[in-house]
């Protein structure tokens, strides 16, 4: 065991040196380094772009940056998994490139595609040119030899349509790549992702290997509709986000909904937390809490009351059955929420 460890240690040191050597970090990168100097700075930075992160989230982001590893984010729907990636992008001041996964997603949609139309158009336009090039030759094999000198002009980068994954690798100053709902994709696609996630390079048969100019910051999100493979998990850092505590959710609402009073925030967050404990089909997510808060602000509400809740219930409950269950307990829920001290 100890022996293995020593090997690991030296390999991992080497790896890090290699990576640092291979990929030149530009001046923007050093600025990013500055941003990622401490965990607290990451947390503050995320807060500045409107994302309230728990210690754990900030630490994982910090670690992922320093290890150059993708982060696999799991958790129930609507806790801000996707939002985290967006916030990270604007915090790092790099573009966000998003790949939404779905069943049947394949390489041509995720990685690259040849621009068939353009290739065809060019062959037609250049027909005369081509005629002239081969015109002097008499035999067929000579013409082909002649054409070979021009190699794969029609399979060059100009005719390549980069899809999200390739685009993320090509971004000069780095990017945040968000592979959203990776659990919705097929097993085959997941296997294909592995190459990109571990080496940050892809091979295109006609052109060669494209390696990342700077390593993109990768987030993968999953709602665990399907078990992800061990191999994918091994390549990522893992972050599980659950619904935020009341205090944190209050902060989130305050920062996302300007002009809301502290008292109302306390009441509505308390109400939502109680609803989450009920036996309902679809628990309200954080984004729905925010929607509700916005609605209440527009309605100039100062306090929660029974009628108001009843009228606006459909903003965070989307299933008729859930609404019925909640309405039954509306009185106790509202009272309890009103007793909440901020």
């Amino acid at each position, binding site marked *: 065991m100890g022996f293995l460890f020593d090997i690991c240690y030296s390999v991992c040191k080497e790896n*890090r040196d290699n990576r640092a050597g291979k990929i030149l970090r530009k001046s923007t990168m050093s600025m990013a380094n500055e941003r990622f100097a401490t965990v607290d700075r990451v947390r503050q930075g995320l807060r500045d772009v409107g994302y309230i992160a728990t210690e754990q989230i900030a630490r994982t982001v910090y*670690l992922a940056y320093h290890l150059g590893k993708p982060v696999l984010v799991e958790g129930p729907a609507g806790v801000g998994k996707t939002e985290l990636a967006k916030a990270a992008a604007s915090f790092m001041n790099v573009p966000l490139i998003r790949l939404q996964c779905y069943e049947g997603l394949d390489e041509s949609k995720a990685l690259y595609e040849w621009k068939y139309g353009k290739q065809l158009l060019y062959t037609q336009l250049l027909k005369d040119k081509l005629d002239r090039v081969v015109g002097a030759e008499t035999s067929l094999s000579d013409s082909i030899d002649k054409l070979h000198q021009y190699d794969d002009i029609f399979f060059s980068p100009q005719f390549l349509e980069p899809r999200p994954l390739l685009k993320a690798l090509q971004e000069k100053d780095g990017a945040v790549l968000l592979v959203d709902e990776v659990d919705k994709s097929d097993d085959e696609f997941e296997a294909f992702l592995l190459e990109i996630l571990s080496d940050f390079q892809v091979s295109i048969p006609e052109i060669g290997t494209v390696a990342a100019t700077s390593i993109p910051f990768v987030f993968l999100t999953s709602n665990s509709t399907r078990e992800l493979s061990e191999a994918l998990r091994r390549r990522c*850092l893992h972050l599980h986000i659950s619904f935020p505590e009341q205090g944190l959710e209050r902060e989130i609402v305050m920062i996302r909904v300007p002009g809301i009073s502290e008292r109302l925030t306390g009441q509505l967050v308390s109400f939502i937390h109680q609803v989450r404990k009920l036996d309902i089909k679809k628990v309200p997510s954080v984004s729905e809490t925010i929607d509700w808060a916005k609605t209440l602000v527009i309605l100039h509400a100062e306090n929660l009351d029974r009628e108001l809740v009843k009228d606006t219930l459909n903003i965070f409950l989307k299933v008729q059955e859930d609404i019925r269950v909640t309405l039954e307990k509306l009185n106790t829920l509202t009272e309890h929420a009103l007793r909440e001290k901020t």
Partner: protein
Amino acid sequence: MDRILENFITALRRSGVRVSIAETMDALQAVTLSGYGDRMLLKDFLSASLAKSLSEKEIFEDCFHRFFSMDDISGEDFPFEKSSHRAVNQSWSPLTEMLLAGDGGGLSLAMREAAARADIGDIKYLTQRGFYLQRVLQELGFEALDGDIRRLREEGNQENLERASALESMRDHLIERVRKLVERQLELYAVRRVDELSEMYMKNANLTALEERDLARIHAVIQRMVKHLKDRYSRRRKTARRGHLDFKKTLRRNITYGGIPFDTGWKLKKIDRPEVIVICDVSRSVANVVRFFLLILYSLNEIVSKIRTFVFCSNLVEVSAHFEKYPLPEALARIQTGAGLPILMNRTDYGTSFLDFRDQYSDCLTKRTTVIILGDARNNYWNPRTDALRFISARCNRLIWLNPEVPSLWGAGDSEMEKYIPYCTIARECSTLRHLERVMESLLRTH
């Protein structure tokens, strides 16, 4: 090298988290970033790099807590001799020195180091406690301490005697501490040591011997098994699916390119997807095994598209809908107790149940159907109604009978297995997960 991390990962592996070498490397880097000072930071870093699912995170929490919160000796709960003033001329052993100086931090460190030197990570069994206790004490330098105490006693003036008795009480306390340390280590390294072998073990163990509390873990094993089979199956399907060139489709697609076939279309081979019908005995005689049968059915339900499930005891009912409607534990409980089902839980009657199936559901039997019957064929001396089974057998592609009993018992007592065998394509013993796996494999292979 980082001994602490190494031990922690060992402990984590023993508790059932799979940690790969790549992850170990990540953890190493994470530790270089965080150091061991800030426990919470360390925990989050390690958790992100080592525990990769919610269930693993739970184990991790537990393990981390046990591993890092142990054996810190602080001044308060250790009876250091407060007023001890050292005699300068004496040369004490390092341990005596620390005890006299009341150096709690030093003691904790010394204890941990001694434990590491004694290879405490290798502790496996309860009976090894004494042995490891002695070894740690030895590494800690107890002989020298005893020597010091003896010397003090021999010198014999009042002050020395007092000091000696103080040292003795501290020594006893320290032994107690080390004993606790060893116990905690035992918990950490050995508590779920069986798990290392568990998957192998569970696959081979007799299903009747497995217990209710293992259900979740067995389900995990089964799911892994099913996924494995499915992966293999789907890969095969993918390559086998491409047929010959679809000329019409190609033409249609390439009209935009002036008829030059840039984009070819291929015909897809249609694959036969046979339907599976499972008929499962849920009576008390097979109660223990039924749980696992149902578990397998539940998992199969996810990969085989057309599957219909029936259970029977005194009569037969269809339960396919239950698998789709309810989460696993609830579906199992409902089917086993027969809650909400029109099933009679009296004595098992294979004959009537087959008749029920023939009369009500025989229209779902086609030449592509595989019928699987799970049961021990113990018919309580009722009429076996082999004619009903013959009818079913004649109308389906294959009839597979899985019996939890060993073949030597088939036909003994009220078992009608011998009479049923002629109508089965395959009749097999099925009492371990390994057996089940084999059956499922053959089921999918012929798909």
